[in-house]
């Protein structure tokens, strides 16, 4: 004699779980498709979705430098960069990020990320092909909050000379449309 399924084992619950899972997944996908810069009280979080450049469409790998650069459009022209420490030949974003350093480019004249020598201790991680930078450097966060740039420029560079430049709107925690996460 079979007993009717109860709790999460019932069809209704399974269906609901499926819906929730699909919803969460689609939200995650949606989140991945958009670059984001969010400025909170004590930190700046930057999510960079990998563009479909050579990284994803590679035929023959080249030895060279990968870099991400975020021009913060503050008054002093500050930028941060994730730049590889050495030339590498890979198409794995995790490997690239692992072999790279987060640096601060305090001057607009540090146009080359390799010249940006001020290393930041903040974290960079890769999840679902999204590079996430969490800046907790108080001076940098203060600077951004003070200058309130409406948008930043994010650029990604590949060893073959391809690059892509995107303009990303900055969301401040005190913006009217800011959504608390």
């Amino acid at each position, binding site marked *: 004699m079979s007993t009717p399924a109860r709790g999460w084992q019932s069809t209704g619950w399974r269906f609901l779980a499926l819906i929730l899972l699909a919803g969460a997944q689609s939200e995650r996908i949606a989140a991945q498709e958009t670059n984001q810069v969010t400025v909170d009280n004590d930190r700046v979080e930057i999510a960079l979705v990998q563009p479909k450049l050579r990284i994803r469409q590679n035929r023959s790998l080249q030895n060279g430098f990968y870099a991400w650069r975020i021009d913060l459009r503050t008054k002093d022209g500050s930028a941060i960069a994730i730049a590889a420490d050495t030339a590498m030949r*890979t198409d794995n974003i995790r490997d690239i990020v692992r072999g790279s350093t987060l640096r601060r480019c305090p001057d607009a004249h540090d146009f*080359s990320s390799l010249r940006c020598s001020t290393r930041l201790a903040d974290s960079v991680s890769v999840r679902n092909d999204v590079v996430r930078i969490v800046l907790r450097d108080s001076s940098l966060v203060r600077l951004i909050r003070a200058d309130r740039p409406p948008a930043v420029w994010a650029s990604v560079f590949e060893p073959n000379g391809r690059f892509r430049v995107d303009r990303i709107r900055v969301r401040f925690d005190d913006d009217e449309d800011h959504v608390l996460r």
Partner: protein
Amino acid sequence: MGPATSVQVETPWAGERWHADDFPPTACRQLTIRPTSPHYRPLVALPVRALASAAACVWSGLRQWWMTIRSVPTAGRSAIVAALFVVLTLGLAPPAGAQSRKDSVTVHARLVLSISEFQAAWQRAWRETETRRFESPNGEAQRRLRSILVHCHPTEADSQFIRTFWHGSDEIVRQRNFQFAQVTGRNSMFAACPTWLFADPNPPAQDERFGRDAALLEEFRVGMHSLRALLLTELDVAAENFPGDGWITGQRVRFLFDQNDIAGAQAAARSCKAERWWCAALRGYAHARINEVLPAEAAFREMQQAMTPQQRCAWDDVRDLLDPAERNAYSSLSCAARVAAVARFWWMSDPLLRVAGNERQVEHNVRRVEVALHSALEQDERYTWTDRFGGDAMVSLVMRYGWPGYTAWGGDSIDDDHTDYLETRSSPRSSPYTTFEYSIDRVHTLPPWAAVSAPFLAPESSWSLSPDDQLGQPYTEWWPDEHFRSRRRLVQLPEGQQAMLRRENGVRVAATVLLSHPLLRQGPPLDVMLVSSTDAANVDTVARRGIRAGTVGVMQGIIPSAPTMLGVEAVGTGNRAVDGRARLGIVPPPSLADLKTGEIAVSDPVLLDLQNEAVNLDKPSEELLDQMLNTVNVDRRHRRIGVYWETYGVSATDTITVSVRVATDEQLSAMRRLGMRLNLAGNPNREVVQSWTLPDPQRGSSIIPGRVPIGINAIVLNLSQLQPDTYVLEVSIERAGSVVTGRRRITVDR
């Protein structure tokens, strides 16, 4: 028609640049640990794999050596072992070349990132610039108008020019119609839609041909100048360490020009120590950028001499410049056959034969160098140069039209829209997308490829420099297969009348010059030259004189009796930087030296303008040629014309019959002939014939005595009864049953 084709030109760094695919250059390569390995687990596997790889490498090397040594005789083996001992004892340093090559790869990799980052900074400034341009009051309308050019969809064949009527809100723009071409790629759906600069953006952009930063607003230029200076410092250091590196030298030259450091760019090109052909190309480019056509031409000549036949074949490829319908004819030629044909093509494309140096050919080489410099990285400030991203369309665009004067950007949303279009058609994103706009004062000096095989039969209509309206403004509804901007404005002179009259040791050639173009109607006289040329190396001045602006002149002189290209070339003097030209191929008749004793001949008839009352036909002489009608199209004002011809070998006492006949020569269809037989249709061919016998004291003629006497004759012809049509004017003479005829095709206009 198939998509556009582009030519892959081998650059000095092709195949080797910073790819580093051949590192390390030993047998151990396959054992090298690469992070790309699917089994790569860096933290755990790295030490283990490194040790294993090193051991395997050493074992493989020793085994290889042992096999080699075992294969040689004992004496040789001893020598090898001894040599090995010495080498190991003294210590064998790695080959210097290998080390420097490895360094070179690292330096290249760093430079690629630096250049890319600079280009990204430039792109940011340019996008800000373009965003602000279209924030002006009529900016949105301007942006909308240009959107069709940004959204360039290759739905039409490459040969198809598209005529577009713009329906914008701007009155001036709306009244102007534009034509543009689609330049498509082979490997993507990316296409470029070049057109004329049809409305100045606000604030106006400067012509980018005169400097890269001209595309930026003034406020961004200083910043870009500083950044580029830093980039140039890096390039300078790299050039010092690797003086023979053509890629580095090329990028230095490129960015020095972008920096407007002309002297620096020229010095960099002069000090180039890379491959000889590439250095010569850079020198030519550097000269051409400051309008030094002759030194540029010399440098490009040296470049061609230093190239391998394959390199030269690719570099000189002119396929992109031809009408798509003619490209197959070009492609069917072998590289060897192309050399002569392309040389003729450029000779025929020379804007002015009288001016030393071929500005158009130099421009072609400049465009090739420009493409090589911009495609040295996959991407430049705005455009992608690899085929998969539509780079072949970009190459084609630059080769056909040069670098655009202005490129408008549609903005992020238009970029996203167009990327969607491309991606749904399996083509990758290639943003930012722009218009490609060119100043309208450009000319198309190239002849059709068909004319290249028979240059001396090319009529004046083979060249269409640029059609202008009555104000001297080029038509925007015209869009050629290629064009370029000459240093001075060049306009087409109207098709005139040419006469070729036999002389003892050559041919007297006479050509009319009508300076009626709106830009030539007023001002100081023009310096006009009648030139004859059989190839690029042989250009002779037949006649030269000043002709008043807005008037007609006749140029005369003696040329050899051989096929030649005849050109009337008027150069503006004083402040007038406008030149005019007309050109055609001619096959002159033989000289009188070839006329056998007792043989007679007649020249083709020449039309004379009788509006000048001083013209006297009673006592005809060679001076009548100064009254040549400036056209063979007889309009209502010229229904009464003079006809001049010469007889050869007819003395004053010879009795000859002269006939002058004007007739249409329309080919009658079979139905028409049947209708005429049945009296149902009339003969559309009309003719007027006059005949008389000489000598006749009532008819004026004169004789120039000589071994072969030259008879000069002229009559008045009234064509007022003729219907507008095309006719053949024939002059025939008959002596003792021998008839000779001279002909000229004329048109009677309404």
